[in-house]
């Protein structure tokens, strides 16, 4: 069974992944992957280790060029669009292994997120008058008021990221993604390695981002409790193929999904929830 087939009106779809296949030499990381992300939803991509989730994100970001298939963002094909241009269109993401700039402060890391939407050129920058100054001060004020307060990271704004604990780094990376003015926010394992409390905080932030920022969320996550709690739609990958998709409740009892996770030991237990274990 392929879960519930979902048909969406074209204008409801913010991201369409259409028959994407990707291979690294002989390794088939993705095979004919197709699914749609509904505007304003939280869509989760789950699957055992090595299923191809991060590869899927990298294909959507434009790092990897699919062997076949296409990614459509907001009705526009992204084929031939370089990663920086995709960022400018409103595709923002965080990384599974956190890709903050260690030599910079939290504030500078967040400011970097806005790069694509700023206009300051080299000459403006050298003199730091007029546009450069105005743009920087506006950015600073907006980051302070909308992002730093929202994510409760006032106390670390001037700290170098290298000094921060893991959970806070994940939060700073989310802050930087928010500074990108995202329309689709892709989170690769946002709560991996977090304790219960940190996970709950992050889940709350993700829900708030969706509500208050009008941002669609596509996330990869292994924490099934969190996936089931906050997502509207779940896509299940296994060995690079979509084996099911649908509502969290439907996917959880899908035999194909259960079978895929049974082979995955610990994850199988996580899928059925800690109580059942």
């Amino acid at each position, binding site marked *: 069974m392929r879960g519930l087939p979902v048909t969406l009106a074209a204008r409801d779809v913010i991201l369409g992944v259409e028959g994407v296949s990707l291979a690294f030499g002989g390794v088939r990381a993705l095979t004919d992957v197709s699914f749609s992300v509904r505007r304003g939803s939280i869509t989760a991509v789950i699957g055992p280790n090595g299923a191809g989730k991060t590869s899927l994100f990298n294909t959507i970001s434009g790092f990897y060029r699919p062997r076949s298939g296409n990614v459509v963002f907001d009705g526009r094909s992204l084929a031939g669009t*370089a990663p920086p241009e995709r960022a400018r269109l409103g595709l923002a993401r965080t990384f599974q292994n956190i890709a903050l700039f260690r030599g910079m402060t939290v504030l500078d890391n967040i400011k*970097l997120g806005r790069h*694509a939407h700023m206009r300051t050129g080299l000459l403006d920058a050298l003199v730091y008058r007029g546009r450069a100054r105005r743009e920087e001060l506006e950015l600073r*004020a907006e980051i302070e008021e909308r992002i730093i307060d929202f994510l409760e990271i006032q106390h670390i704004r001037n700290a170098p990221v290298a000094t921060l604990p893991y959970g806070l780094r994940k939060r700073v990376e989310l802050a930087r993604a928010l500074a990108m003015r995202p329309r689709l926010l892709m989170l690769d394992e946002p709560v991996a390695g977090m304790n219960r409390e940190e996970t709950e905080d992050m889940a709350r932030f993700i829900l708030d981002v969706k509500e208050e920022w009008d941002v669609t969320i596509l996330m990869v996550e292994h924490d099934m409790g969190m996936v089931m709690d906050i997502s509207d739609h779940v896509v299940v990958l296994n060995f690079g193929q979509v084996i099911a998709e649908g509502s969290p409740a439907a996917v959880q009892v899908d035999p194909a999904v259960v079978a895929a996770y049974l082979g995955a030991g610990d994850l199988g237990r996580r899928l059925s929830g800690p109580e059942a274990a």
Partner: protein
Amino acid sequence: MRIGTLKTDYAADEALFDTRLQKLLILLACAAAVLFPFVASPYWLFLACLCAINVASATGLNILTGYTGLVSLGQAAFMSVGAYTVAVLEIHAGTPFLLNLLVGGLLTALVGIGVGIPSLRVKGLYLAIATIAASVVLHFVFAHWPLTGGMQGLSMPPARLFGLALDQPFQLYWLILPVTALMVLGAANLFRTRVGRAFIAIRDRDISAEVLGIPLLRYKLMSFAVSSFYAGLAGGLWAYFFRVVTPESFPLVNSIFYLAAIIVGGMGTILGGILGAVFMTMVPELLKFVAGLVTPFYPDALALLAPVRTIVFGALIVGFLIFEPHGLAEIWRRIRRFFHLWPFRT
């Protein structure tokens, strides 16, 4: 002593010199720079000009290597482009010196962009080799092109301001120092904006920089352009200072000198470029002084100066890389921190 800083608004927080102590220090430094020529001997003025020229060039290299992470051993060759441009313009066109400097800088920036094109593909050692190759090519061109006077090089007239020839260190000081100060200020400004942040992002993790919307090639070339623009200006100042430009004026070892200056001073900090360039310019003078002291007891001391100088440079680079990788700038920060908290914590 200074306890905490109370920031009233973001503009104050984003300012270049944000504490009163910093502002005071800068004012004092400016005042000292203005008074210096009136009290210093020509020898010290000569050294001050040389330091300023080296600060300008090292700051440029710091933008490329320290901030953007692209290692270059072509800074001296880039300077030669600026120096020759200024000399040719001064000899054949007689245009105003500020214009000549600017043209020299821009032309060097173009050359820098050309040399930087491989930087999208090659990094680290390979890029360094590519910049050495470019240096060799430039040397060859200058040594054989009739316009640049072959191996003899070019002797040029001094810069002129309202008919007055700027040919003494005292007069040149007023040309070189302000230009260098503006260049350093420009570099500091750069890193308050998205352009400078993009450079640092490329240095730290170029792949995720791309996902943040930073086109790598464009910014790498921009970094090469700014850095070589700085080298070109510094080379132009050098030409006005020495007034003879030959193919041997800017040997490869000078490129190593600038790299050493930013390593010793502190890569990726504006202060590092300044401190490193001044320090490295003064080391040979210090050695000369020491050699002078020991000559009465050891008459061959002066002959040993050149090899000792090279050894000391090498030792400084290795020493800083091992014991103080963040350079003199970090030592300065530690001193400041000490006095901020003093006498409460030492």
